[in-house]
């Protein structure tokens, strides 16, 4: 073992190195020979976790997510109500074949290979426009991952219109050059004509294709593991269905189920406008870049043309403020002058960017989506007016569902047994907390205790009788108090499933005092109760904390809007809960009266010999009238009498439960 090795291994203070002329190991020239370009492909090849492909489980989700996001974007841009098919098949030995198809506009033949076989290629990066995808990495990265783990190419079928033939490609990505390679038919792909001929071609090549007049289907085989519960494809699709009530999703997971999310709304979201950047939102480097690449023109006209909300007058103001000649040419602006202009922009008052470019889901659609997927008794939605962070317009929406059956009670015995056999959790408690939303550790402990099982029992080694007991305990558990809140986070209608702790949405939810609205909450944590919260941030540029797009950065402006939106839904929930409490209270009063009426009737009967039953029923009627009267009094003090729903406003949906309080 050499000296240097010891040093690094022990990490202890070493005696001063002996003064000895060391032999240089390498030279600048030699090293220069090693220095070369790193291709994007190679970079992501090695750093696939940056894109979310860090485990076999997550890879499956990321692939579905990227493909579905692209499909929804394409459909909306083309003005088509999206139909989406997601099909996952286990091909054995830890591999899955994932196929996603849409009824979108399709992709022209020439573009197909680049879109699926080249990283950082796409239409969305260079424009400021609200869309789900941003960088153009996702689907090609999924294809690369598949190729990497199974060696199989990405299979793409695309059809642009009824009359035209569909194209079929098998594409592989050359990671070194970041270029696509088409494998089938000498790099030309196959045309699939319409009609019976085409059917034959599909059968010959074993191509799967849902018959639509236009659309795209991508099939990737990869090393992946299907699972259910948190962070799964199931969860992602469910949440996608909430935020996209105009989409219809047909999902076939490998376990043989058929999950179908119906279209809850026939209205497409309004088309998002593309906008020019706002001066407040750019950085000095961007400004220099823009100046350098602009056509030769006067500085003032450059400013008013390249940016939104900069009129010639404002441009003049900026230039004067920066002490630069008004008619200076963009080509002659140096770094220092650019800096002066950048500083001047910050000092100049420029109106906020146009917010038309944001297409929010809308309160009505939010309610529809949430009601469609999350069974509950009370729903409320709030859409905030657009606001601006760093010159980027954004808009916050929040929706809340209260009550209903918690997921632990929904699962069937068969489903539970399947989950138990599939799970990787080592203990029963871990199994419960990771697979079911909103139960928390205490809820899991309660269930396990009720089932007379041990917390550390291994889920896979449970006996059939124990499984049955667990299922019964899960059905019988009352979680309403201990249940913790479920937060669904969305950015541009895409559900964010990971890193909740790092996300601005989670922070905003935890910072809000929910006790004001009748919920219990420990300081600085999620509120408790049977609540599903859905928060959506729509923006032309969503500030993610990382490339894998899992958490939203906490800009103060965003946090403020989040707080206001949450307060909006919280207030309505508070009103509803208080009203419900009153009704419940009245019910309890009635119960108390009822309890004594029998005694009173009996005693009066023995006093004057009146008919016991008659008196009892009469008194019961008075009790009802009296408690109803108390309701009225409550209403007179400011609450509307006849339709309690109405006073909550239009953004609220109340599902009458069948229970009679």
């Amino acid at each position, binding site marked *: 073992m050499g000296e240097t090795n010891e040093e690094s291994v022990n990490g202890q203070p070493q005696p001063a190195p002996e003064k000895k002329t060391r032999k240089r190991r390498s030279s600048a020239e030699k090293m220069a020979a090693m220095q070369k370009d790193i291709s994007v492909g190679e970079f992501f090849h090695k750093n696939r976790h940056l894109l979310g492909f860090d485990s076999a489980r997550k890879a499956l989700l990321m692939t579905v997510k990227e493909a579905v996001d692209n499909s929804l974007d394409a459909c909306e841009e083309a003005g088509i109500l999206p139909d989406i098919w997601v099909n996952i098949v286990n091909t054995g030995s830890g591999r899955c074949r994932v196929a996603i198809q849409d009824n979108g506009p399709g992709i022209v033949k020439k573009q197909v290979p680049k879109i699926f076989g080249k990283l950082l290629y796409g239409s969305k990066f260079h424009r400021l426009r609200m869309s789900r995808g941003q960088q153009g990495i996702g689907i090609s990265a999924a294809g690369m991952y598949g190729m990497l783990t199974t060696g199989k190419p990405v299979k793409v079928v695309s059809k642009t219109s009824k009359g035209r033939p569909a194209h079929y490609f098998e594409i592989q990505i050359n990671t070194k050059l970041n270029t696509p390679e088409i494998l089938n038919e000498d790099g030309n792909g196959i045309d699939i004509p319409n009609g019976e001929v085409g059917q034959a071609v599909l059968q010959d090549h074993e191509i799967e294709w849902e018959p639509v007049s236009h659309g795209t289907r991508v099939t990737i085989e990869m090393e992946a593991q299907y699972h259910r519960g948190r962070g799964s494809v199931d969860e992602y699709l469910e949440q996608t269905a909430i935020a996209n009530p105009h989409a219809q999703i047909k999902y076939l997971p490998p376990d043989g189920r058929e999950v179908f999310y119906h279209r809850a709304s026939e209205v497409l979201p309004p088309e998002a406008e593309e906008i020019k950047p706002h001066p407040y939102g750019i950085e000095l480097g961007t400004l220099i870049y823009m100046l350098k690449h602009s056509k030769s023109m006067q500085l003032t006209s450059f400013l008013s043309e390249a940016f939104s909300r900069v009129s010639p007058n404002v441009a003049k103001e900026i230039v004067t403020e920066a002490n630069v000649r008004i008619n200076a040419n963009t080509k002659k602006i140096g770094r220092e002058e650019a800096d002066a202009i950048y500083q001047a922009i910050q000092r100049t008052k420029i109106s906020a960017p146009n917010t038309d470019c944001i297409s929010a889901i809308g309160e009505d659609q939010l309610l529809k989506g949430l009601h469609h997927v999350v069974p509950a008794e009370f729903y409320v939605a709030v859409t905030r007016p657009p606001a601006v962070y760093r010159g980027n317009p954004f808009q916050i929406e929040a929706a809340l569902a209260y009550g209903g059956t918690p997921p632990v009670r929904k699962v069937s015995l068969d489903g539970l047994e399947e989950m138990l056999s599939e799970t990787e959790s080592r203990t029963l408690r871990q199994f419960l907390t990771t697979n079911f939303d909103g139960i928390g550790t205490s809820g899991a402990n309660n269930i396990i205790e009720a089932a007379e099982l041990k917390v550390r029992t291994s889920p896979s080694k449970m006996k059939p009788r124990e499984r049955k007991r667990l299922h019964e305990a899960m059905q019988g558990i009352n979680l309403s108090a201990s249940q913790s809140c479920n937060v669904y986070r969305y950015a541009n209608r895409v559900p964010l499933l990971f890193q909740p702790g790092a996300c601005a949405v989670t922070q905003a939810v935890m910072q809000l005092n929910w006790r004001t609205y009748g919920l219990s909450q420990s300081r600085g944590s999620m509120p408790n109760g049977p609540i599903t919260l859905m928060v959506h941030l729509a923006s032309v540029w969503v500030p993610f904390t990382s490339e894998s797009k899992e958490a939203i950065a906490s800009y103060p402006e965003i946090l403020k809007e989040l707080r206001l939106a949450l307060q909006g839904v919280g207030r309505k929930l508070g009103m509803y809960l208080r009203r419900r409490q009153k009704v419940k209270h009245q019910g309890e009063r009635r119960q108390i009266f009822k309890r004594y009426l029998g005694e*009173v009737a*009996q*005693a009066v009967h023995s*006093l004057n010999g009146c008919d016991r039953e008659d008196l009892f029923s009469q008194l019961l009627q008075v009790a009802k*009238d*009296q408690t109803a009267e108390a309701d009225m009094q409550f209403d007179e003090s400011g609450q509307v009498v006849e339709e309690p729903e109405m006073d909550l406003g239009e953004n609220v949906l109340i599902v009458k439960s069948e229970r009679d309080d």
Partner: protein
Amino acid sequence: MIKSQWLSTSSDKHEENLTLHLKENTVANESKKDPSAETEAEAKHRERDEKTNELLMSLADQLVKAAERKRNPTLEIPIRTQANVNYNKSRKIIELGKNKSQRQLFNLSQAKSFMQMILVASGCKKLIDQNKTTSIRGLYYMLKHTIEGTKEETFAKQSECDPMIEDVEVTLNALREELHVYAQSRGTMVGPITIVDSGDEIDCSRMGTGGYGIPSIVEDDIVQFKECDAKFVLHVEKDTVWRRFNEDKFWKEHNCILTHGSGQPPRGVRRLLCRLNSELNLPVYCLLDNDPWGYYIYSVIKQGSINLAYESQRMAIPEAKFIGLRARDFDRCGLSDSVKINLNDTDRRRAEQIKQYPWFSGKKRWIKEIDTLLANGFKLEVEALISLDVSYVTETYVPEILEAGPRQWLD
């Protein structure tokens, strides 16, 4: 002799007796004499029960009527607090005012007590129908049961039941004995008087050491005075003092009736004192502790209590006199410091309160007495006199005071 012995033991038992007190004995005895003829007392008795029954029925009818009209059944109960009692200066008794509180069936905080009141009423009806009486604790057990379909008891404790009985009394303006309910008997009597209690003749001068236990109900249909040689009544505060007087045969020497009421005298004792005073014209002298509580016992005997203001008329003895102990007796009798009991804050507050009562505030000698007590800073029990001599109180103190005449007493 045998009979009286039996009676005295039975009256001792009264205290804890929870079972129904059977009156059948008397009825049987009476009927043996003359089955067809109704005695005067019995006729009175029956008449009274009929009246009470009517009152109870009207209470029930009122409730049925309210239910038929879909109204909230409401009972009006006279308020029994100091705010609702007045001191009638001309009659010199405490009277109940006109303020009433409402108790509604459909009021969350009153529903249970409403039910309890109706239960008490039905219990009393049952007792009247069966011609039986019971103690208030007996009534509590009679009515206590679990409400159907719940785990709740009609009455959790006797302390829930007792105020309901009083509520029924004031609401119906019926007395406790009219409802066939009696309280624990806590008083004793001895002296040259012969009475008839439920048909049994009792010579109170031949009661041995125990004395005649004064029952809770002493109305003239139960207790009649047959013969009396006594000239006055000496009422002492408690049993220990009473025993001293009885042992020394004070009552024989001074020809008086000797009673005690175990502290605050119960209704039976007060009613009996009142009857002795009004029917036999015997003056009543009270020998009580020198402290605010002693003063108030005297006040209750003299003009009635706040809580039972509705019964003052037949219980108060406006002519009753307070003969001792006085605050000045410490110096006058030359008592030692060791018999002093220092006044505490509660005592002082109570003394100030008593001073404010209208039936005390107008009497200069009483104000002086209370002021002396407060200035002394200590209270004296009657037993303190024993420190001078065991029989000092019977042989010296009381005879001296009685000799000295009304000027030395407090009125």
